[in-house]
């Protein structure tokens, strides 16, 4: 399966981008000449001629944010959190959904499916916002620590994605179990665990990979939306920015993931649009890469069928 996938150029390109981005995120301080902050811009006489934020034209390649932090390094730093958290959430969604669907399959009631179908049209960002805001209130009164907060937030994001997947998997498992070769296997005396392990899971495996990639994309989009709503993974702190005559509150992400960069600066969309557009572009590029991987997986499945 893996070898077949790696022969698909679309999958390979997407996969290499994601992997190299994560690797770069870990090793960039040791391989690049890192100057993370430029709060002021000086002329040849060492006179201050500008103050952060700087546009990509003034401070290539991506400019700086309000605090003079280079967006290139912010994005590289945040990549490991953003992509890894996304992959973990997507994995856990698939894992729990598969686990629950093995039990749900036995139930003939369509009640659960009807409830799930009804909730499919509620934007997941709204659901996540509703569940996460009380968490921040609790964290403000009884601080729970960043790691605990990240774990609870991830569980919420996992929980939101599981019910629709349970519905999908249950349907899929039902259709596999109705196949003639499964009845044939049962007619030989096979036990259910064996049939699931040897027949159902291998048939599901390629679809699992496809759904995993789709879940990763959904999670990335959700994180970007939550960033705009100032709901940041790992929590945030509010700092006052500007000069003494014009202080404005600003939200700063504690974990550094991409949505945090959007969340802390989305008010600057008109005056310093690059601060929003750079992390958004990386979101888009990551989604594009995962989509390439999905295309590769689908091509592999098609070639397997024919």
């Amino acid at each position: 399966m893996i070898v077949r996938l790696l022969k698909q150029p679309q999958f390979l390109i997407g996969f290499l981008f994601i992997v190299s981005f994560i690797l770069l995120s870990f090793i960039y301080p040791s391989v690049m000449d890192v100057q993370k902050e430029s709060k002021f811009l000086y002329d040849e006489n060492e006179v201050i001629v500008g103050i952060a934020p700087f546009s990509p034209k003034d401070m290539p390649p991506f400019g700086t944010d309000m605090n003079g932090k280079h967006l290139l390094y912010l994005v590289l730093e945040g990549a490991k959190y953003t992509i890894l958290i996304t992959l973990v959430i997507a994995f856990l969604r698939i894992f729990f959904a598969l686990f629950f669907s093995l039990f749900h399959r036995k139930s003939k009631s369509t009640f659960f499916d009807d409830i799930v179908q009804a909730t499919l049209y509620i934007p997941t960002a709204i659901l996540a916002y509703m569940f996460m805001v009380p968490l921040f209130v609790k964290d403000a009164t009884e601080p729970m620590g960043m790691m605990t907060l990240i774990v609870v937030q991830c569980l919420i994001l996992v929980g939101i994605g599981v019910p629709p997947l349970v519905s999908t998997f249950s349907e899929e498992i039902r259709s596999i179990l109705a196949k003639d070769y499964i009845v044939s296997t049962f007619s030989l005396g096979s036990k259910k665990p064996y049939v699931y392990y040897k027949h159902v899971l291998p048939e599901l495996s390629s679809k699992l990979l496809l759904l995993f990639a789709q879940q990763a994309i959904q999670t990335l989009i959700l994180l970007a939306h939550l960033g705009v709503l100032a709901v940041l993974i790992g929590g945030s702190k509010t700092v006052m920015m500007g000069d003494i005559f014009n202080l404005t509150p600003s939200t700063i992400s504690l974990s550094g993931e991409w949505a945090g960069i959007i969340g802390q600066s989305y008010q600057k969309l008109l005056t310093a649009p690059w601060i929003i557009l750079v992390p958004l572009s990386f979101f888009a590029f990551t989604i594009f890469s995962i989509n390439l991987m999905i295309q590769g997986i689908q091509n592999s499945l098609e070639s397997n069928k024919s």
Partner: protein
Amino acid sequence: MSSRLLEINNLNIAFGSGKNVFNAVTDISLSINSGQTVALIGESGSGKSVTSLSVLKLLPANGRAESGSISFDDKEILQMTEKEMQKIRGNEISMIFQDAIASLNPAMKVGVQITEGLKYHKQMPKSELRAVALSLLEQVGFHNPAHIYDQYPSQLSGGMKQRILIAMAISCKPKLIIADEPTTALDVTIQRQVLDLIADYKIREDASVLMITHDFGVVAEYADWVYVMFGGRIVESGDVFTIFNNPIHPYTKGLIGCIPSLESDGERLKSVYDYSFEEAGYKGRKFAPETYSMESKVYHAPSSLIEVEPGHYVRLFDESEVTIVG
């Protein structure tokens, strides 16, 4: 003296629930003795396959045996737990399905699929499993078993796949083989090979065969006893000579009449429905199905299997009991 191996009594099988209940099989009774080949013959939808699946308790999720009994080797199948059934399936009763393409997992090597039954019922080391599988492949006519063992179903022809299914079915030497239209999807040259393999196994192991078919040619050559099914009921049963020489029910006559004859010159091929149910009669009794319509009225009469001569049963009903129901 052969002993009774399988006995089905007054079995009723229904699908669905509430107002959507559909009775697929009504009041079926049949028996198979050791070493006997029994044919269950009827058109598609007559309930043959459902009857055979109920013997293995493998009915689809919405189907159930409503009443009756299935006794195998003096054990009541319908009372057995799933665990007890797992010990019987493949080991004492096995099944050969009609669609060999769909009955094999396309993503698993055929050799591994042959060993599945052996894994459940015989505790063997892996190397021995492979050796047994190779021997089974040889028994079902493959001259290069080691090569076939590593093939995927898509690499084999229809006849080869059907032979793989036979190898799977006979792997644990079951006492009863249910062959559910094993030759339907095959061309005539392969059909004989497949049926001969089943017949050879039956003779070698003194096993019994329940042959489900709609082909009276197959019945004539391989069966000892015949049950004819129509609309979920048995309409006629008897030994193969009686059924061929003296068919009484018009549906049986229709099925036999459908076999093209080499002697008939220029005649139109007959259909089973060229034989009228409503008008045919036998000694004052009629053959019509329980509920039938005539001249825009719906009639109903309870029918029963009547022994018209020793061992020869025909489903009939008494005209005096006919009632108009609609």
